[in-house]
């Protein structure tokens, strides 16, 4: 069950304050990294929503992000829409595709679900890679940033863009938290624990799963729009399954099913990536070793580790809460 413990609220407040303070202190490079973190954070919150709480470990979130990025770019450059309607369209498309994928995969669980989502993600990747409409291997350039000139904000400035990205992370977090608090979110957690029981209680299982997946897909689409606006150039690589795999790595590093953990994971991942890749071209190997160590330690990421440490200091409650198997 999703809940805001004091620790998590404090972490959130510190993250919000810290990132906003950093936007005013950082130089150009720092701001670019901040935007990169924000994009990854939105994607991993979306993934944690379904993987951490619903047990739907998806390997197609990279593709959903890519769909958002491509839909936004095509709508803005080819169809000539302005940024806001193009974003709405892109998010709606990602959500619709995610709903379809969720509905089709609703019967599969465990490794079959992972494989099925992987297949759909790769299908999207191949489609975009081969289709001449989307520039194929060359990708597409020219995604615009939203024009907020009316309220005196220029998003071509990297500081303004970083703040805008952080605000979108906050919106994403609130949407995810609201979803988890709603009846749908409770059903989702229930489905993860005991699907048969919820079916017996009269829940339409596939619809609940597909709807949750659609919300997650919409958020991934938002991350895609932001990615397109950030680099203003997109390539099929965004849809690759390794992006989904990396997102899963980030969720695990931060703490599965904690919602705040993945944000920490995103910060760690992007900063580590830049720090280690400055030292050695073999940074993937280091990330791989860290991932193996984290999974083998059986701690639930950074947040899970800290929470478990704090819990041992407190007197133990008489009835242990049932812990969800990841």
């Amino acid at each position, binding site marked *: 069950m999703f809940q805001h413990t004091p620790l998590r609220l404090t972490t959130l407040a510190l993250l919000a304050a810290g990132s906003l303070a950093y936007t005013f202190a950082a130089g150009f490079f720092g701001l670019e990294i901040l935007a990169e973190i924000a994009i990854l954070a939105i994607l991993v919150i979306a993934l944690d929503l379904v993987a951490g709480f619903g047990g739907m470990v998806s390997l197609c979130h990279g593709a959903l992000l890519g769909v958002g990025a491509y839909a936004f770019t095509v709508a803005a450059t080819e169809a000539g829409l302005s940024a806001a309607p193009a974003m709405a369209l892109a998010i709606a498309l990602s959500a619709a595709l995610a709903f379809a994928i969720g509905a089709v*995969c609703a019967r599969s669980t465990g490794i079959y679900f992972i494989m099925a989502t992987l297949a759909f993600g790769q299908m999207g990747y191949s489609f975009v890679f081969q289709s001449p409409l989307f520039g194929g291997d060359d990708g597409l350039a020219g995604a615009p940033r939203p024009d907020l000139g009316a309220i005196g904000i220029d998003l071509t400035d990297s500081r303004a863009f970083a703040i805008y990205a952080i605000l979108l992370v906050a919106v994403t977090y609130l949407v995810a938290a609201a979803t988890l608090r709603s009846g749908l979110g409770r059903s989702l957690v229930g489905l993860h624990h005991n699907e048969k029981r919820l079916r017996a209680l009269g829940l339409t299982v596939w619809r609940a799963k597909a709807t949750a997946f659609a919300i997650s897909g919409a958020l991934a689409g938002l991350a895609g729009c932001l990615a397109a606006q950030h680099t203003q150039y997109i390539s099929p690589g965004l849809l690759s399954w390794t992006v989904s*795999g990396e997102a899963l790595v980030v969720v695990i590093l931060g703490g599965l099913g904690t919602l705040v953990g993945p944000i920490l994971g995103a910060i760690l991942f992007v900063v580590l990536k830049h720090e280690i890749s400055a030292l050695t071209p073999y940074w993937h190997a280091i*990330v791989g070793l860290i*991932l193996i160590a984290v999974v083998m330690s059986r701690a639930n990421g950074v947040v899970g580790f800290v929470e478990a440490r704090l819990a041992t200091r407190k007197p133990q409650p008489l009835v242990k809460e049932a812990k969800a198997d990841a």
Partner: protein
Amino acid sequence: MTADLGFWVLQMLNALQLSMLLFLLSVGLTVIFGLMHFVNLAHGSLYAFGAYVAASLAGVLGYWGGFFLAPLAVAAMGAALYFTLIRSQRRAGPMAQVLITFGLIFVAVDATRLVWGDLPIGIAVPAVFEGQLSLLGVEYPIYRLFIITLGLAVLGVLTLILSRTQIGAMIRAGVDNDQMAACLGINVERMFFLVFVVGCALAGLAGAVAAPVLSVTPDMGLQILIPTLIVIVIGGLGSLKGAVAGSLIFGFVQTFGAVLLPTLSSVLIYALLAAVLVARPQGLLPAKG
């Protein structure tokens, strides 16, 4: 073009060659999964390792040195992985296994870059199999026919072992119900180790035979992984028949799709996979009914 018999023969042989290569890879992975429900995403990396070992040894011992030693080297690597990572994660659930083996892929790709560099390595086809053979009016490279023959031979040997020997019967019992098999006195854990190492050796063999045809690059393991997974998911996890059926379906759909429907070819196989997953979530020929 399509009315010509030679065209069909040529594409048929290409499809068979791809199928057999995929079969060598997927059979180990699928039996490992069937027996112990272990998902090894790093299987493709073992294949790449086999290709690199074969390519390196080819310069010293000639092609056949690599051909015979690469599977042994990969099997040794598999055994090392088994004792360090695999055994302790056996009951950790698919999520942990997927993540650990995903981490292994990262490590493996960079390790091969570190040892062998970023540039593709090519090795020559062995002298015995150089040249072309005329077959039904088509000139076809002998080496590719050798791959097809080797795949069929491995398939034959595995079928015999699994259906006619005692160890085969024990493996089938383990796939069917590992707890019951253990109760009957079968050391399932040791059998799993055996199957795992043999599966790794077959992946190494696939790498060694693929090395002269494809170029040996650090990301070759990552590239072959998705086709291998598609094969075993279409065929049904855990079954030899499924691996055969999946490999043939993938090989033929991919090859004929590329020449007959070039615009749709790569989407075609994923659409087929999605259709299989919707209609039969357990695959076409699953190990358990």
